């Protein structure tokens, strides 16, 4: 790896109005579109060199879709992705390969994200087969061993198969694969959700160490707000395909202003029995509406205790509102202490 600037720097990844709609079709011979699942529906995020952007939200809110868009597994329906100032949609097919090297992904499930029929060496070496220009053929083996070593596995196990490793170890293999092309950005889609609590910390620590060492920027997607708090510098809270609140870690966790974020945070159980019964928990009613048919206006209004008429009519923009110093998409944004709050 090249130089390792440690400080948070310039914006490396940026999206504007990013949308991904999956068409819902109907019809016998001629399929006509009758609607769309608005999996990601206008997301603006910024990622700076060396920082970690945490993305949190409940199941189905579009986190994985966002991740797939960012690494180019899906083409956006609308909006742009700027990688180091370059609009990816204008990049030619050939240059795309080079661009892609800069942005890699770590998947959620360490059991399904590794090809069971390839050895660890093959898995980690595959990026070099696809991008032969990165490492000369001769040096590949050494490089693969280096990578294995880097993520804390035994380089002698290069010829083993994924199933011979535990979940945490497999996740390290996935991380090594993502690191192979010296990317600046790694998109982590719930990298620790599938891991046992006792193993989770190993992987989280590894990710932190690598960031420090190589100045990597992470988009860290998770539904576990505790882990995000631990690892993220800035956090974006998603609800039904939209970012409804964003700010640095402190702003979100200590000074959250959006009712949904507040409910989300208050629901996280705290491993401290002394707080039992004294915490205010906001219990939301009902379920998340279908992304194919989101509510008008503010999407959260159907479950929001603050909802008023305006919420149904007008969609609140994600802006910084008076009395707060970070953007939030609520007409009635208001700070409220929720974590560990004692009533």
């Amino acid at each position, binding site marked *: 790896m090249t130089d390792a600037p440690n400080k948070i720097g310039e914006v490396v990844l940026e999206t504007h109005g990013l949308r991904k709609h999956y068409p819902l079709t109907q019809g016998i011979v001629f399929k006509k579109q009758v609607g769309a699942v608005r999996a990601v529906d206008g997301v603006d995020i910024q990622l700076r060199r060396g920082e970690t952007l945490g993305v949190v939200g409940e199941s189905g809110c579009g986190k994985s879709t966002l991740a797939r868009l960012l690494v180019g597994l899906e083409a956006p329906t609308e909006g742009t992705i700027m990688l180091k100032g370059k609009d990816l949609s204008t990049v030619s097919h050939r240059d795309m390969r080079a661009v892609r090297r800069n942005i890699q992904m770590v998947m959620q499930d360490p059991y399904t994200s590794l090809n069971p029929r390839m050895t660890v060496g093959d898995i980690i070496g595959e990026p070099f087969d696809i991008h032969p220009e990165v490492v000369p053929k001769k040096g590949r083996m050494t490089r693969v061993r280096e990578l294995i070593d880097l993520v804390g596995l035994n380089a002698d196990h290069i010829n083993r198969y994924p199933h011979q490793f535990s979940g945490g170890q497999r996740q390290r293999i996935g991380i090594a694969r993502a690191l192979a092309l010296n990317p600046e950005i790694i998109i982590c889609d719930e990298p620790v959700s599938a891991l*046992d*609590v006792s193993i989770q*910390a190993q992987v989280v620590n590894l990710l932190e160490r690598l960031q420090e060492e190589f100045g990597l920027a992470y988009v860290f997607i998770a539904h576990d707000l505790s882990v995000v708090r*631990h690892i993220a510098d800035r956090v974006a809270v998603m609800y039904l395909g939209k970012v409804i609140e964003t700010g640095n870690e402190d702003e979100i966790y200590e000074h959250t202003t959006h009712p949904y974020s507040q409910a989300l945070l208050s*629901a996280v159980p705290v491993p401290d029995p002394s707080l039992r019964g004294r915490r205010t*928990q906001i*219990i939301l009613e009902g379920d998340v509406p279908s992304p194919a048919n989101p509510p008008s206006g503010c999407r959260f209004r159907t479950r929001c205790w603050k909802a008023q008429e305006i919420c149904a009519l007008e969609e609140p923009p994600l802006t910084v509102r008076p009395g707060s110093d970070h953007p939030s998409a609520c007409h009635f944004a208001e700070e409220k202490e929720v974590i560990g709050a004692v009533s």
Partner: protein
Amino acid sequence: MTTETSVKSPSTARFLSQLDMTAPPLEVRNLHVLFHTTSGKAHAVNGMNFVLDQGETRAILGESGSGKSVTAQAIMGILDSPPAEITHGEILYRGVDLLKLSDEDRRRVRANHIAMIFQDALSALNPVFTVGFQLGELYRKHRGMSRQASKAKAVELLDMVKIPAAKQRVNDFPHQFSGGMRQRVMIAMALALEPEILIADEPTTALDVTVQAQVMDLLSELQREHNMSLILITHDMGVVADVADSISVMYAGRVVEDAPVGDIYARPAHPYTKALLESIPRVDLKGQQLSVIKGLPPVLTNIPPGCAFHPRCRFAQDNCKVPPEPPHYDVDVNRIAACHYWREVIDS
């Protein structure tokens, strides 16, 4: 079709007469369960002990594979044998050893006296029958109710677990419900016959936090209402802290620490419990250092001799590495830990 009216039949009466209502609802003594697998005998549960008191919520905590579910299934008597085999132990329900009961009586205990909720509600509900059918079945088979009456009961149950429009939804199939609602259907099913003991095996692990909060809230509320004893199986330290009265921490199929909830979080007496607490990030604490439990959980066919945790333990000494395994030291009243060096652990 035979209907099993458990209320008045003589055999039911005989069974009820054996119960000692002064004894604790459930007591598990030295339970050993192993699985016969192709790679040998997997010792899933190795001397499980705990007592569940009236109205108590006991959490069983442990990482994946530590034997939580197997213990629960052994209590329910729904382990598949083969491959499972209960080699030792007693499971006392109100003083009666369930393992010695006839199949018939054993079956009657289920749902009537002890009920269970499973982790994955989607797969635990039969996909091809309506929710109403599956709920009503309990009343029809155990209470001999008619189809009609049982359906009405099912609606009541759905109402009880706060499913909106219960009357209509009773005819829906499980896949038509959201994750949280399915789990509530499971809860309704478990509570249908008003059991004394409810075993909830990771009831919220598959759910989102906001939904988890809804479900746990409901569960505690119903527990209180019905004055049930609850065994809550989980690996989420947060959930435990919120609802449990006492905790059994399992490692490699054995209770390594058993204590009232406050004590464990404040001063863990077993190195495993301690490491676990230190390795989880907390939403209410900023920038805390995560410590790591090195190594991996043991392979159950080849559990390390002595203390099973010793290869991963920073307190381990030579005597931890040889049999016998550490006994359950009394740390306090109501508090035990299976570690030779519990004092050092508590003090560190």
